[in-house]
């Protein structure tokens, strides 16, 4: 019995050395729709004196159907349905964007949906994907495909442990960063919004054993 336990605790050590296989990682991240998760998204930009922070719920309804609902500090709902993005703000007419027309929108939300759907084909159609780290602390880097001329997103990094993604970090060409925290780590974000490095450190922190 002790031997078995020892083996079980040693097993992760053996694979820490190498980055996990993309297929294996995606399979472990896959969730059956529908799934809900709370989120906090923080944006850092030189146009802003202080970071911009919103919180709400992400709903994963299907591989190509996703809803992002902001509850604080105001109410706003974004839906992705296939190739169309709908944006509904309180007291305003719903706005609509075609993903094809605005590839910039194919950012965090698309990658979030593709990762939860375990859909490597969709993911790789829009992004070049690399994996670093280990099973226990991995990092997926998504680089948008398409011409550099009108690329506004430089990269999206997904940071997580084992089968849990914690943060989606988007770096924009214009220099702004946006960090989306999901799952349990939402509760770890302090009430006073931390600076970018502090928040990223929080994303990468090893889970409590």
């Amino acid at each position: 019995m002790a031997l078995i336990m020892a083996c079980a605790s040693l097993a992760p050590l053996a694979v820490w050395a190498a980055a996990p296989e993309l297929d294996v990682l995606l399979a472990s991240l896959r969730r059956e729709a529908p799934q809900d998760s709370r989120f906090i998204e923080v944006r850092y930009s030189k146009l802003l004196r202080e970071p911009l922070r919103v919180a709400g719920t992400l709903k994963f309804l299907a591989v190509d159907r996703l809803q992002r609902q902001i509850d604080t500090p105001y109410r706003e709902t974004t839906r992705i349905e296939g190739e169309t993005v709908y944006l509904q703000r309180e007291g305003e007419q719903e706005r609509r964007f075609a993903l094809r027309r605005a590839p910039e929108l194919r950012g965090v939300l698309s990658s979030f949906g593709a990762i939860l759907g375990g859909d490597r084909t969709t993911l790789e159609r829009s992004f070049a994907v690399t994996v670093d780290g280990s099973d226990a602390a991995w990092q997926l880097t998504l680089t948008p495909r398409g011409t550099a001329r009108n690329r506004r997103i430089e990269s999206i990094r997904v940071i997580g442990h084992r089968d849990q993604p914690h943060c989606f970090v988007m770096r924009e060409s214009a220099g702004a960063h946006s960090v989306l925290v999901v799952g349990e780590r939402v509760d770890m974000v302090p009430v006073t919004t931390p600076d970018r490095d502090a928040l990223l450190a929080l994303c990468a922190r090893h889970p409590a054993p």
Partner: protein
Amino acid sequence: MNSRLPRWTIALLWLACLAALGTWVAATLRIGTDLRLFMPAAQTASERLLLDELGEGPGSRLLLLAIEGDHSDALAQTSRALVEALAGDPHFRLLGNGEDPASAIDESLLPYRYLLGSGFDRQPLDAASLRAALDARLRDLASPAAALVEPWLARDPSLELLRLVEAWQPAREPHRYDDLWFSPDQNRALLVAETVAPGFDPDRQRSALDALERAFDSARGERPQRLSISGPGAFSVLIKERTAGEATTLGLAASAAMLLLLIVAYRHWQPVVLSALPLLSAGLAGLAAVGALFDSVHGITLAFGFTLIGVAQDYPIHLFSHQHPRIAPRANARALWPTLATGVVSTCIAYAAFLVSGVTGLAQLGCFTIAGLAVAALSTRFLLPRLMSAGSRDHGARAMPGWLAAAVAPRQVSRLLAPAIAALGVAVVVFAPGPLWENNLGALSPLPPQLLARDIELRGQLGAPDVRYLLVVEAPNVQDMLEAQLRIEPALQELQASGAIGGFDFAARYLPPIRVQLARQAALPDAATLRALLADASAGSPFAAGAFEPFVLDIERARHLQPLDHTALAGTPLELRVGSLLATRADSAIGLIALVGVSDPQALAAFAERRAGQLVLLDMKGASEQLIVRYRERILVCLAIAALLLVVLVRLALGSSARAWRVLLPMGLSTIIVVALLHALGIPMSLFHLIALVLAAGLGLDYALFFERADDDPAEQARTLHAVVVCAISTLLVFALLASSSLPVLRAIGLTVTLGVVSNFVLALMLSRNPGTRMHG
């Protein structure tokens, strides 16, 4: 008796003259392809526009392309490769597949967004509106659209650029796949090309199509993809190639049949070879005359002209059939000449009607035919006899095949026959249902209907403008015209909301009048005021101080810009869009309102009716029909005058009213019969039927003149019969072949002449022979 030597000398000299003429013609003749040569001068504004659109308009230069036969991703790849391969190709002004052409607004137009866009008209730039804009941008930054907004935010916090881009979106966007235009089922990648060459220039269109096909072949590589091309330019190439191909095939078949007939009829090489000389002379003389009098000869003139002067083949046939051992060829020609000349001059009078028709293409046709027939007749009279030998045969003495002899045997004809035929014919024309005239230009199009259906389908999928309806605003100058368009805009929006039209597009949408631009400019705050406004609006917001300094600079630039007018658009992405919707003339400016998805033409017509002073609804089909009606009326008047002249001429030439009546009656009756038959068959008559009727009437007149001429000598009567029978059969052969053509125009001419020749021959046989000399038995 001519010795052998001078005969060959004459033949060689004749051939040398023809060769020289041929060389000159080949060197100087330019062949035109502009269909407008066959249209009368425009009289109304809409006719003028119609002709412009037909020849040079942007609609006529548009090619619609579809790539299919593969899965969507591969099609998209080929679509991109094709656009890339043809970038900068001199054949095309534009080739689009839906991929953003670096957006409609480039750096040169960017500062103009505050003059061209209407955003601040509704919502002036003040602290309140600025605060609302900044609040909205803050939410944008927290939304998935953040990456879209951030790069512009500092320069354009109210997103005027976005509003402008949205306002300039096409009225109806095609379906997309992978960012490119596709058919809704995603089985076809769609592209639009605008050629430099006008649509009705098949030669230059052909080279554009070649460039397109070469680029496509290299773009698709080994994949089994197909490219189909639709649009006026592709059609004009197809029409030209089909017409030329079929005309060549039919021409060869007709020539072979003629040759065979001449051999059977004369059983000697001489008539077969020599009868080609007047025809050849006629063709070259016709070309030379047109070449000397007109800048260029239209391809259609050539095609029809050669059909019409085929009649010249009859002249040597008369000479050869009347030749027998007891008469010298020159005496024979002299004896036939009064009859032949009367026929030729009468036919020329009929074609002279085309000379004064006011339509360049028809005038060319008249000129070509008159010159050709005159030369053929003169060479038959003066040159051909010197090359002929007296011969040893009397064609009149030859036994005809039994069925033919029975068919042409003289019969007693009731005096009531002629009035009965005329009455019946007129009754059919008056009482049979269906239109007598064909007013639809498209009915004569040789294009297969499925190609036209495909064109309509592609047009629908691409949201290309309606090809039939167009609204037109005319004003003394461009600025007034743009103002007029702005005044009409609300009404057009109502019309769109009512569903009568799917959308509209006009120049003022992209280029507001200078007055409007100056007013917008005057309303922009100066830098100090704007900074104060911004400080006020962003107080308490998370935006950094001075974040909007680029906005202040842009507004400051916009305040000192020269307003844009249509001439300043050259080289900008707007040049094409505005250029295709606006035309300037010496004393006026014309603005086109392109319509998309016209679903209720009646509501559209009523809309235009209510605004009669402001705009005109141009119905391309209606305008072309109106044009054709007017054109035909004029030609009919000319033909009526020609008919009167012809009656006078025949009466003078024959010296007796009774003889003139006998000659003219079969021709007149035949014309009535053919018109009645066509009408009874449900075939509405077009211009080409009219030309063919004139041709048939000319042939009939010749038959009647020769039948009437035959004197008491039964042998001479037999020779005349031989001549007319050979003439009629040869003509029948040629035109029956044409009637079998798949091309509507050739079919129209072939059928009409075939009917006309049969009717003329039969009636001339029955009615024109001198009653006093009628044979019995």
